[in-house]
């Protein structure tokens, strides 16, 4: 057993209001630079829709992620040798127009225009070419289902058996905030010929070394989530950094901190590194989710704690893992799912499937609506979150409905026995607290400090003290 710590995030899609605050605060902090204008480390897309970049889920086109080739795990873009031939030209690399061309407006004309019969207008100007341009696509061009064509060409519909008409009376939508998943088996890392992308040993954050990156661009098509970007100014790859300067100091990422809907949870997960291979080699994609849960270790299990200590994981990390909101959502209650686990990158950002729109429609008819007659087709959510396994989605929605049923009884001072026998005394109440009340302190539990002992810190600060003390001088 090789225990690794992973800082992980869970998002409660039920509560995402699609405000894009997360995208904007992230952009203001990290990608407001020349060459990075088009990048959204965090973006929120309306589903159904084509997403950002357009059709990122179409892996026939991009060849993202890993595939099992006769039981052998391989990058979908090809073997190592064939991929070296793609150094000069990568057929699957997205280009600027797959995202959008960033632009600004000629605001100057508003101020300096001569007196005219008509109002002066600020016309759009490309930030790449500095020339006038026609804006025909942008981030969230299809927000809130604008332009129905985009919604109809959602990739997930192609795999669904039931027909989605998107007629007005049964139209549906939901928001999907997306960022890098800091995967356990990151395809971007596996694809990088220079070895510039790495997974951090201590907290699992996946980063691109700006020194080592040579601009070979293989990470970009290989990430099935299209969360590595090419900076056309510095000519190197960039990606979400999980706000590591904040996480290292025990603060949640900017997108989590500023989330208006308070939908984001962050905490530590322990996993068994030796078992990750088993997950990625799972034959049936629908079984991957279950295998992912198996890889996560119970931080309250004394054997795990002992082993973690032995392997040098600091006490504050163990404590954080034992009180991790993400662990609770993912493993204890099993209500959070990985996005497109079938890409086999073992993503570490989790999503709780949404249900609100359904409930409201059903409430008029029955007190306990049936998950089957929900507004968002279960089959659609299953495509996104469970490799098409509808039972998983149904089970989770059932649980979320039970939280509501339970709270209704509890608030009206009725007996909750019918739930208690299934879930135990307080589980549903705890779920209600974490999901609905969602206090800042409950949502985030990130250990401060890194894996540096006190003695090592002194050394790092330059205060070497008395050289020659074996194992440090402060014991």
């Amino acid at each position, binding site marked *: 057993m090789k225990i690794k710590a992973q800082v992980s995030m869970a998002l409660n899609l039920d509560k995402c209001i699609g405000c894009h605050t997360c995208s904007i605060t992230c952009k203001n902090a990290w990608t407001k630079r020349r060459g990075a204008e088009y990048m959204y480390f965090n973006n929120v897309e309306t589903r159904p829709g084509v997403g950002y970049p357009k059709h990122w889920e179409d892996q026939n086109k991009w060849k993202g992620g890993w595939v099992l080739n006769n039981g052998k795990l391989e990058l979908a873009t090809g073997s*190592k*040798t064939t991929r*070296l031939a793609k*150094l*000069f*030209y*990568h*057929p699957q*690399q*997205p*280009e*600027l127009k797959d995202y959008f061309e960033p632009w600004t407006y000629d605001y100057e004309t508003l101020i300096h225009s001569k007196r005219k019969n008509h109002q002066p207008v600020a016309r759009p100007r490309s930030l*790449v*070419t500095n*020339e006038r341009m026609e804006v025909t696509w942008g981030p969230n061009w299809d927000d809130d289902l604008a332009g129905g064509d985009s919604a109809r060409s959602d990739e997930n519909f192609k795999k669904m058996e039931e027909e989605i008409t998107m007629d007005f009376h049964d139209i549906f939508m939901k928001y999907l905030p997306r960022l890098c998943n800091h995967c356990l*088996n*990151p395809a971007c*890392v*596996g694809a*990088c*010929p*220079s*070895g510039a*992308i*790495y*997974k*951090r*040993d*201590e907290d699992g954050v996946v980063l691109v070394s*700006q*020194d*080592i*990156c*040579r*601009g*070979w*661009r293989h990470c970009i098509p290989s990430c099935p989530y299209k969360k590595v970007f*090419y900076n*056309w*100014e*510095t*000519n*190197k790859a960039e990606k979400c950094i999980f706000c590591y300067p904040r996480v290292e100091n025990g603060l949640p990422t900017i997108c989590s901190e500023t989330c208006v809907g308070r939908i984001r949870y962050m905490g530590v997960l322990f996993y068994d590194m030796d078992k990750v291979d088993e997950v990625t080699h799972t034959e049936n994609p629908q079984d991957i989710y279950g295998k992912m849960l198996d890889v996560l270790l119970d931080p309250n299990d004394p054997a795990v704690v002992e082993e973690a200590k032995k392997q040098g994981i600091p006490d504050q990390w163990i404590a954080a893992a034992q009180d991790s909101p993400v662990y609770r959502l993912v493993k204890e209650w099993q209500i959070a799912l990985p996005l497109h686990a079938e890409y086999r990158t073992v993503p570490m950002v989790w999503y709780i499937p949404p249900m609100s729109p359904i409930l409201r429609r059903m409430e008029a008819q029955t007190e306990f609506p049936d998950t089957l007659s929900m507004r968002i087709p279960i089959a659609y959510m299953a495509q996104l979150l469970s490799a098409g396994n509808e039972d998983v989605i149904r089970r989770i929605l059932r649980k979320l409905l039970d939280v509501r049923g339970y709270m209704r009884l509890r608030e009206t001072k009725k007996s909750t026995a019918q739930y208690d026998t299934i879930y135990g005394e307080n589980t549903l109440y705890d779920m209600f607290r974490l999901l609905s009340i969602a206090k800042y302190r409950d949502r985030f539990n990130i250990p401060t400090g*890194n*894996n540096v002992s006190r003695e090592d810190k002194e050394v790092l600060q330059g205060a070497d003290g008395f050289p020659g003390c074996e194992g440090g001088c402060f014991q």
Partner: protein
Amino acid sequence: MSDFVWGGLPYIAFTFLIVGTIVRYVVSERNWTTKSSEFLDKKHAKWGEPIFHFALLCVIGGHVMGILIPQIVTESLGMSETQYHDMALMAGAPAGILLVLAFFYLMWRRFLSGSAAYLKANTSTMDKWLYFFLGITILTGITGTLSNADGAFNYRLFIGPWFRGLLYFDPQPGLMLHIPLIFKIHMLSWMTVAILFPFTRLVHCLSIPFRYLWRAPIVYRKR
């Protein structure tokens, strides 16, 4: 003067090439990149880039053979000078022509095609100087080769020994005095390219990631 040009300038070029490259690597690895423009224009890169690089590798391979291997060696292997010349021309000329075509196609792509406005963002002043001297090198190279198709000027008796002399630190500028003008320009322009090398995108040729072939797929690093 010619002593300097054929005995001193090459060493200046080598010094820039080697020391300059090391300095750049140490001081600013952060901007050491292929400077790929595929993101801004994929359509024309599709054929242009692979063909250009392939032809370039062929031409470089040809130069290594032609310049570094002395004529005595091929002759002792039983290959006469005319045989060698014919073989070199048969293999070299197509590669050279391909290189010229691909080079000008890429220049057209960068400066004149519909994507030129976008590629401007990928073209620095230094790039323009590089393309200028690279263009001269390639053009004089192919012109020299084709104009010398009959093998009247045996460069393996002049340029080859001169270049090898440089490598042994035994420069023989006298060998270069009477070579055809086109070859002289070819020499001067590659030396310029060598001097520019550390300051340009060309450095990416030193980063071919062979190590990737036997690396573990997932890289872990401590903070």
